[in-house]
Each structure stands twice: as C-alpha cells, then as structure tokens.
C-alpha cells in the first residue's frame, strides 16, 4: 500500500517511455533549425559536410545589394513600427489596468483581436483600406500594418507588469506632495521602463519576422527581408537562402538575448532589494 502511494505518475517504466517521447519531440523541433544553420556553412546545399565548412555563402551575401537593402529596411521598419506599438500598447495597458472601468474583458478582447484574426485577413483588409484612403504601399503602410499586428504583444507585456506594480510607491510620492504628473514621471515610468524596453524588443522581433502582411503592403523598392526571402524561395532553395535564414535567426536571438538580460537584471535587483530590506529589518 505504501509503495503504491509513493509512486508518482506515471510509473517507472511509463516515465522512461515518456522521457523518450519528449526527447524525440525536442529533436523534431530543433532538427530543421539546426540543419539550416549547418547547411549555411556547407559547400553542398543538401549535404551537411562536417569536414568542409565554408563562409562562401556569407561572402555572397555581403556583396548582394538587394539583400543588404532589405535587411536595412527591415531594421528601420522594425524600429518605427515598434516605437508606434510601444506608445499605443503602453497607453492601452495603463488605461485598462488603472482605469477601473466596466467592460474591461471586452476591451481586452478587442486589444488582443489582431492576434486571433488570421493574418491573411488583416493583410487584405488593410490593403483595401490603404487603397480607399490613398495611402501608397511602402514604408508608411508597413509601419501602420506592423503596428497593428504587434500592438497585442506590447499590451500583454506591459499590462502583466502593471498588474504586479507596487502602488504604495506612487502613494508615498503623492503623500509627499508630488503632483500626478510628477509621480508618473519620477516613479511610475522609471519603474515601468524595463517592461517597456522588453516590450519594444519583442515588438521589433515580431515585426522583423513578419511575412504575410508585409507581402501585401510593400513594394519592390521598399521591401522587408522576409518578403525578399519568400520571393527567392519561389524559385529554389539556394545555399545563400540558408545563410540569410541564419542571419535572421541571429538577429532574433540577439534581440531575445538582450530581453532576457534585462529580465535577469530586474529579477536580481528585486531579490537584492528584498534581501537588503530584510537585513535592515533584522
């Protein structure tokens, strides 16, 4: 009886089997991504040749003017769109978390709507609107479109942090005679800054990898990187595309790496602060 009670689900044999299944799924998740990276250093497009690594495809890239232009354009677009989304998304988060109005569940659903409606629909819908409003395809259209697509991410990150915000700090500032604007500027915004920067990084990343909407809203001259890659793929998969893919992954991971660093620092600061407080109290 006791032995049975101590046994946790699933049983020992079952657990080994589960572990094997999970390991296989992780291999499935990583195999294609690792293959792209390895193939980008390989002479032959379909052979991962560990003996002969080459930087040839990257040398091709550096001399490929359209690719460089698209990369530059994607970065500029990501910065503009995430700036727009951070402004609007943070405002939405502040308004919804702090203003205790009615119908907040419905408002929240409205703010998340752009991620549950299929991208293809938002793409054609905005294209129609741009035509009706005589907004030409290109940078402006792309900034508007991307800002809509990435706003929910910013809203989600900033509102999560606002829910956990220690409001006694704001109360203290107010008690000491700070005006609401001063409290916002001196207390709330500085404390929210890591969340806002984090949201900007995630927003940039989502914009940087966005494909479907960009296809509809861009022109041949103002074209983000994923659209160029997509059109290259219509012909064939070249080793150069593997190299571009690896560069795109590198950009993604640099951005996420910075995001993670900010998170760790914030956590370390929080635990440091509470440890200090305990010492003082003790």
């Amino acid at each position: 009886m006791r032995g049975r009670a101590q046994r946790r689900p699933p049983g020992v044999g079952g657990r080994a089997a589960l572990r094997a299944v999970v390991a296989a799924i992780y291999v499935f998740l990583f195999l294609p991504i690792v293959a792209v990276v390895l193939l980008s250093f390989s002479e032959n497009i379909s052979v991962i040749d560990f003996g002969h690594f080459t930087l040839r495809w990257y040398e091709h890239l550096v001399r490929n003017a359209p690719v460089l232009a698209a990369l530059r354009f994607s970065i500029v677009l990501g910065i503009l769109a995430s700036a727009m989304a951070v402004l609007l998304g943070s405002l939405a988060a502040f308004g919804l978390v702090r203003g205790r109005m009615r119908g907040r569940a419905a408002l929240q659903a409205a703010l998340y709507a752009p991620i549950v409606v299929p991208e293809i629909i938002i793409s054609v819908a905005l294209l129609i609107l741009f035509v009706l409003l005589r907004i030409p395809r290109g940078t402006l259209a792309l900034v508007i479109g991307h800002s809509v697509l990435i706003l929910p991410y910013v809203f989600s990150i900033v509102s999560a942090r606002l829910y956990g915000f220690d409001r006694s700090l704001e109360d203290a500032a107010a008690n000491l005679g700070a005006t609401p604007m001063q409290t916002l500027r001196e207390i709330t915004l500085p404390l929210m800054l890591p969340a806002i920067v984090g949201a900007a990084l995630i927003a940039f990343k989502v914009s940087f990898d966005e494909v479907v909407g960009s296809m509809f809203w861009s022109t041949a001259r103002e074209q983000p990187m994923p659209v160029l890659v997509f059109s290259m793929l219509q012909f064939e998969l070249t080793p150069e595309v593997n190299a571009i893919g690896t560069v795109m992954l590198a950009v993604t991971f640099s951005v996420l790496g910075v995001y993670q660093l900010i998170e760790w620092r914030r956590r370390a600061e929080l635990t440091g602060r509470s440890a200090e407080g305990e010492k003082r109290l003790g």
Partner: protein
Amino acid sequence: MKRRQTPRTGWAALAPPLAWLGVFFLLPMIAVFAYSLATREPGGGIEFGLSAENYSRIGDSTLYVWAILRSLRIAVIVTIATLLVAYPVAYYLALVATRWRVTLFVLLIIPWWCSILVKNFAWVAILADTGVLNRLLLQIGVIDQPLKLLYNEFAVVIGLVHVLIPFMVMPIYATLERLDRRLVEAAANLGSSPLRACLEVVLPLSLPGVAAGALLTFILGFGSFITPALLGSERTLMIANLIQGQFMEAFDWPFGAALSMVLLGLVLVLLACFNRLVGLDRLWGPAR
C-alpha cells in the same frame, strides 16, 4: 488610500490605441465586407452594392469548395497531430520534470521564436528529393528511389505541426501546472494505476487548456499561407493562398474579399463557441 486614476483617466489613455485599432483594424474589416458585396465593372473599377454574387460564385466553383474543405481537413489533421505531440511535452514539463524544467522550457521557446519562414524552408532542405533525409535513407540502403516527401499535403502537415507545437504546449502546460497534485495521489491511494489516474483525473482537468491550444492551432492552421505556399503544390492550395491569388494575381478583389469573409466567418464562429464553452480569457488571462 484613494487612487487618483479613475475610469475617466483610463478612458483618456485607452482612446488613442482604441482609435488606432478602430481605423486600422475594425474599419478595414468593414471594408472587406463591403468589397465582398461589390461587383467588378468591365472597366476594372468597383461598384459597391449589395450583391451576393461573389458568395454564390464560391459555392458554384468546385475548385473553391474543395480548397475550403481541404483547408478544414488539413487544419483538423494538424490540430490532432499537434495535440498528440504537445500533450506529452506539456505533461512532462508540468508534472514530471524537476531539475530540467527551466532548461526544457527555454528549449521550447527558442524554436517558437524562430522565423516561421526559416522553420518552413528548413523542411525543403530536409524533405526534397535530393534533401538531407532522402540522401541519408539512400546511403544506408533503406530505399533505392528517393521518396516524394515534398510539395504535397504530408509536407504541409509536417511544416504546420512543427510551427504550431508551442502554441499547443503552452496552454496545456498552464492548466496542468495549476492542477492539484493531491488529486493524482488520491487516485493512486485509492488503487488506480498511474495510466488510469492520468486518463481519469489529469486529462479531464486539463481539457480547458487542450481546448485553448486546439483553438489556436486550428485557427493558425486553417488560415495558414506561408506553409502551403512553400511546402505544398498547386494541388494543396489552402484558402489563404486562394485569397492571395485573387488580390495579387487575378485582381478580382471583390471575389477575394468574399473568400476572406468565409474564412473570417468560420474563425469568428469558432471563437464564439470557445467563448461560450471555455471563455476567451483562457487565451490571454482574465482582466483583473
């Protein structure tokens, strides 16, 4: 302590983002609907009206009916396959893993964040006739003809499952993590086998998470564009590819708009059912 923020300041902060979404999200949806009821003039212009012609054209054409049915079928297959793959991972992460939990969690997020374009064309390199997999199989002598693995429904399903696994794992993990483990222990104490405890206690309690994951996976699979475009063929086109064709190649925008409304309508019906049965909060957490 009296807080200064009131509904009024809340509305003031919400006004700009809501206006932005109103103009650049809601208004475009209305415009698509208006386009779907419009007709094309011989000169190439659009005449707005209240014509159901575009919708009846969808119904009349076997090509489009088949494409919609195919999209539904692929979405169902992908959802079931993703569930079967994702459930063990979520289960392991939430209830079994201890030391490796954080590492495994990060290892799930990394591929999630990789560009979908890269994740999809990776399968071209693997599944092509002269791709990594066929070369390997030929080399070890399992086959003597390369297998046709690419540019068919199989490749589309594989590509979609690969992209969508994390969307299924996350909501299931979230419900399993909150599950009261004492219930499992109670089942064991009452003499049920581990497998039975899993099927009769854990599984029913995780159903809301399963529903949320299945909803996300189904919507994303059903409306997918990139994966069928890169890994499928003319014969596996899905509804999103047909919409793109109408807008970018055939330039029949009213007809493309009608196709979009069919897709949007099906998605909205699903979302409404989910909201009734489980609650939309489950997708993003309640507004506290």
